[in-house]
């Protein structure tokens, strides 16, 4: 009926969505070394019915992803150590179905993106600051295709 990825991600009780929301809560992994951004984005997604998880660097993110496979990775490009793009490529290798959204406030990002493109990865880049409304619609759009696909399987 449902894929493995839908099984019980850990969700704090206060983040449980309102009763009218769909019981299906896509898992989104939010990665940003700026905790103020990571935390607020996670909260925004949680309030909108996603099972959002937070990580502050790439290693942290990989650990979290292995425990709870994400359906969408939303990561800052510039991270300490492994970059957001390297993280995205790694996550894609482990979970090929995982959707990727990158966001960045830096001009140097395009070089990194170009190198990812050379490796055959085409990622969507959001430019900081991203308004929560836009972020939510981008997240929904990224997951839409997947939902339809999952729905087809369920049928």
């Amino acid at each position: 009926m449902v894929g493995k990825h839908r099984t019980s991600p850990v969700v704090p009780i206060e983040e449980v969505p309102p009763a009218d929301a769909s019981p299906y809560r896509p898992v989104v992994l939010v990665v940003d070394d700026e905790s103020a951004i990571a935390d607020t984005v996670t909260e925004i997604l949680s309030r909108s019915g996603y099972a959002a998880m937070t990580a502050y660097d790439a290693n942290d993110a990989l650990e979290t992803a292995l425990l709870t496979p994400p359906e969408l990775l939303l990561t800052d490009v510039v991270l300490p150590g492994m970059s957001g793009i390297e993280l995205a490529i790694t996550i894609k290798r482990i979970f090929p179905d995982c959707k990727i959204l990158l966001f960045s406030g830096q001009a140097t990002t395009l070089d990194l993106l170009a190198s990812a493109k050379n490796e055959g990865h085409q990622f969507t880049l959001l430019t900081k600051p991203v308004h929560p409304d836009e972020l939510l619609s981008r997240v929904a759009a990224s997951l839409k295709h997947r939902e339809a696909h999952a729905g087809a399987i369920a049928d």
Partner: protein
Amino acid sequence: MFHAEPDLAPDSTATPEMPFDSPGALLAAIVESSDDAIVSKDLNGRVTSWNDAACRIFGYTAKEMIGQPILRIIPPGLEAEETAILERIRTGAKVEPYETRRLRKDGRIVEVWVTISPVKDSAGRIIGAAKIARDLSERKRMEQRLIWSEKLAAQGQMAASMAHEINSPLESIINLVYLARRSTPPGEKAHAYLLSAEGELDRVAQLIRRVLGRYRELAGQPQVYLHDLVDEFLTVHRPKLHACGIAVDCRYEDRRPVRVNGAEFALTFSNVVSGVLHIMPQGGILGVEVRERTTARGEGIEVAIRMRAKGMGDNLQGRIFESLLGKGSQSGTGEGLSVAWEWPERHGAEIAFKSCADSDAAISLFVPFA
């Protein structure tokens, strides 16, 4: 194989033939063929000799200058310099090389590097001074260009670091205000405040994006519609233009994008427009037309900027040149053209001034399809 070698050998060992009758004639020839202005004057500051280069640099012929006071080429305000030089020369001391300005016959100022030494007669008495002046205009121009390009690079770097420094906290604030608003019941005053705060933050975000987005493009050049760039610029500057009494009339007829560095195009365009503000203090009409055109450089998009100044009957074209080239003034607008010159070179693009009626002028920016 090479027959030149044995032919050359006897030449190089031969005693050089003296083509001049006397060492004096040789010296005179050297002076005449020098690229530096070499002039001499007596102790009263009257010119006694004037070479070809002096003629070229200062615009006066030898005939016009010999016997005349050297003060003719000293710009107003620098007369004291000449008095001090003459005093120093009378004591037999040399004047250390220094940089100064001189006045050309056509009224333009020329930057020169001068060396002045006393001239003695055979008895060792000081009878005047010899001055060597080197024209620094070309070097100055090169220096200026270097400064401009460094400035541009520095601006780009600053923009990039600003992007990171400002965008991250801005992202957090936007998120926090959003969450705060969502946590406040819609009827409350705080909700309305937070809603306005979000609106203002959105303005800040857009402003930063507008400025920095252009620099981001430095890394990769996407295809853009020139009318987008023009329109965006005019939207931002319309209030300022309006305040200056300048009506803007736009026509966008380009249907194909071009590959162009948006940051540099915006800078060039903005510099041209700020030049326009300078020359139309009493207002006027600024017409901007973006259209497809075929020129000698091929097919492309032309941004044609037409100006009609109010209340200034004559020579708008000349004023534009002056304003953009920064001639005679230290205003920043000169920078615009330097960027404007460099920008097309790297893009196969073209900037041109068009002659029109006296109160009209036009500038055309042409970008070919890549």
